């Protein structure tokens, strides 16, 4: 699977939750606002379910989740380590 669909799927998921459509893949999504208390766990379930990875306690770094590219990098790193 190449990079484009991974980031596109991540972007589509985030767009459904932040009520904003025009943001760069490096923009901090938590700084965009409109993210409720359930979003972080929805995001974990999404990446685990859609990309077949397991997010673990050592992955809990804001740098792994803050943007489309950060999440894409996490997914790809997990794939490489699998």
């Amino acid at each position, binding site marked *: 699977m190449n990079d484009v669909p991974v980031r596109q799927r991540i972007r589509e998921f985030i767009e459904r939750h932040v009520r904003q459509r025009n943001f760069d893949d490096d923009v901090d999504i938590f700084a965009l606002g409109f993210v409720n208390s359930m979003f972080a766990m929805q995001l974990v379930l999404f990446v685990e*379910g859609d990309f077949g990875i397991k997010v673990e*306690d050592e992955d809990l770094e804001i740098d792994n989740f803050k943007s489309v590219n950060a999440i894409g990098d996490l997914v790809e790193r997990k794939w490489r380590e699998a």
Partner: protein
Amino acid sequence: MIELNDDQVRQREAFRSFVNTLVAPFADDYDRAEHLPRSLIEETAKQGYLGAVLPEEYGGGGMSMLVYGLLNEEIARGCSSLRSLLTVHGMVAHVVLKWGSKDLRARWLPRLASGEKIAAFALTEPDVGSDARAIETSAVASSNSYVLNGRKRWITFGQIADVFLVFAQCKGRPTALLVERNTPGLTIEPITGMLGVRASMLAELQFKNCRVPRENIVGREGFGFSHVASMALDLGRYTVAWGCVGIGQACLEASLNYAGERRQFGAYLKDHQLIRRMLTGMITNVKAARLLCLHAGYLKDLGAAEAIMETSVAKYFASTMATKVASDAVQIHGARGCSSESSVQRYLRDAKIMEIIEGSTQMQEILIAEHGYQGEYGRR
């Protein structure tokens, strides 16, 4: 997902048998005593219900979320206080499994799965309820420990828990820590006289310079709410939603029986049309709540992100339903329903609590409507 398979039906029958024999006949006594006997907790543990959703590698039952829901319905049909134990103990075990370190999992999960140790969830404070991010309990990191100071209130099973999952601010970053009951500086005061779920043995905790080993952190500093509390509360909402179905079912069964025995104006209550209207509302609403819970459980077993909001929807509907159904059950039972001769007054008191815990009805209304504007419910 509409019907249970044969295995799920068999498991539900086993839960029913346990509740009908060991729980329901004594639940009014537990309510009056504001206490669950240790023997009942031990028997519940022996059945594997306290570790039901933990994986077998830790001594758990590896139960699916859907079957775990059925278990919570059946337990709550008998006693909401015992269901509360499953809820808080399960919430802690669930997040230690997901976000605990390898050492923390190895140390705690087998003991939580067996029920050797009881866990409680310590988030709420005297001045902080729904606005959980405003907690004031502090954790100051030193070389090998966190120093905890603050108070937690309304902690379910705080009177007997061996370990608490405590949420605190660490340099302004929400952090979750496992704190053992015997930690020096922790004092525990029982809370009594609650409206409902009276045997859930609430307590207030006070932490005065409690030293907690750094390795007791669950998740990472700063992720205490977003990932740890949020995940625990999602499971809590799920079990509470199912518990409300159990309360509704108990109300329905009591009302069908009573309306079939009691005669007024020369006819059984069940033959009076206004009573039939209440019974019809009960039957329909209990079924509807159960279907929402089944849907949430089905999504949880898939690991779907949608499960979180659908659990919120199920909890919202089921808890408001339970209050209405229990109120109607008391109405049908008349004076008897208001007395200690009947369990329906307990069901009504317990149902009201369900609208407050694990996200109040009003918090659910805010979140569900907000989700509607994210498009999930608008494009069908």
